[in-house]
């Protein structure tokens, strides 16, 4: 038998229309046929089923990116964003989604009114992690390792610390020569 590829088995339980976790069990009874769906509670398809096609939902329902033509409803239902401009057009909706799906740290989601949610590196920034920070962190781990009497692991950590310090020394020498 052919091996199943890992991706075939990866799908989590999610709304039959969107990508969110199932929160509503929707049962439809048409004539003799009864159909049950697992859906998320904000699913646009569910809204349409409950309140008819004329949606009273957020105005985002009609939002459409002028550059790539994708609508936010498509994005909510599993399509990927199409271009950098989507982020400007759907800005508030994207933040709302990220908070809802817990895709940003909760503290940030609560405190954010407007303004950037990104706080990492920006283009062109040479952001080398300070080697002394790394050495400090490694020393902390080394300390814990020694407490456990795991000398093999401790030796490895010591080698790593030594290697970093050597590179720093070399770097300094180069800089001095440069001057």
């Amino acid at each position, binding site marked *: 038998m052919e091996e199943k590829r*890992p991706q075939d088995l990866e799908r989590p339980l999610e709304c039959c229309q969107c990508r969110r976790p199932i929160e509503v069990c929707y049962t439809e009874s048409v004539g003799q046929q009864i159909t049950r769906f697992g859906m998320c509670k904000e699913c646009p398809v569910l809204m349409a089923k409950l309140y008819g096609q004329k949606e009273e939902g957020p105005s985002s329902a009609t939002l459409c990116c002028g550059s790539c033509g994708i609508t936010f409803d498509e994005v909510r239902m599993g399509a990927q964003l199409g271009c*950098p401009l989507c*982020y400007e057009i759907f800005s508030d909706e994207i933040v709302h989604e990220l908070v809802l799906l817990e895709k940003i740290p909760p503290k940030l989601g609560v405190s954010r009114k407007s303004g950037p949610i990104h706080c990492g590196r920006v*283009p062109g920034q040479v952001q*080398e992690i300070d080697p002394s920070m790394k050495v400090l962190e490694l020393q902390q781990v080394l300390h814990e390792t020694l407490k456990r009497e795991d000398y093999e692991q401790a030796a490895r950590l010591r080698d790593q610390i030594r290697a970093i310090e050597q590179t720093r020394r070399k770097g300094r020498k180069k800089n001095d020569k440069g001057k």
Partner: protein
Amino acid sequence: MTKESKGEVGFPGFERPWEKNDNDIWLASTISLYRNIDKFHFPQKLSKEKRENISNLIVGVLKELDTLKNVQVFFGNSISPLERDFLMEHFLIFDTARDSQNGQAYVTEQTGRVLVQVNAHEHMQLHIVDPSGDLEGSLEQIFAVERGVEEKLPFAFSNTFGYLTSEASRCGTALLVQSFVHIPAIIQQGLYEEEIGKEEMEGVSFSGLRGDPHELIGDLLVVKNRWTVGLKEETILSSLRAAVMRVVDKERTAREKIAREKEEGLIDKMSRAIGTLQHARTIDTKETLQAMSLIKLAVELGWIEGMSSEKINELFFDCRRAHLAKRLDKDLYASPKIHKERADFLREVFAPVRLT
């Protein structure tokens, strides 16, 4: 001499960072950066021609970089499914993407540590594998590659959302770090739910190789950052390291207990695992990984002869489909014979193994 020492695994001029890796618990990590070139639609919205243009543009820049030596390029229309899966296995990418298409490319370099996927989900997905636990050093290395590209091709970026990606949940730093931790002792003692499953560790999530936190194939736990946006790169690395160190610590404590108690039930399981690999006539990857997990635990406890940490770590790769097909140099891809060939290969490798 066994078959495996004869066969060529990988591509010519491509080193294997997984060789000589004797890690006992924290086996490896991968760091991935997602980037899109500014002013262009994301890959899903590009025409075939535009995808090819962007792919050529990126590949051209990558070939010129000082940070990548002996660059090898595999284009989507010419790479075989076997080669593609080999790269995915080698770089520990559990990708849900379909088969390669025109306009996609895979760029590797000499050390076998860096892979750039072009036009998969994003214009560029830069991956670096790290078997040493030096996450910061590896991040710096992959940033050096990223900066080299950025000088020629500016990336899509907004002050609000950071680096822009087709999946909004990946924007911001657009940095994903995954660590692979082997925790057989925790699992054998039935401590997983209590020690790890229930515990909330700041900023990280746990899963198995297939993404399900309740199915840890080969007792391998994947620890990854939960968020890419709203945090600094350093914070992502340090939360991940802190979580991994805690898991490693729990596993070590569990192993010490096992070493002290030498429980008959566990020794029986280990013996059976050896028996399976020594005698099976047909075996799938999952069963192989489960058996090898117990054997690796026995190796680390010093209860076994005929097998080393380095060798068993390598086997975690070599038993997988694309690695095995490439090693045996047989047209086994998607063939029902693969389970039989795997069993033949493992029987030979595990023949000298026995519990002491």
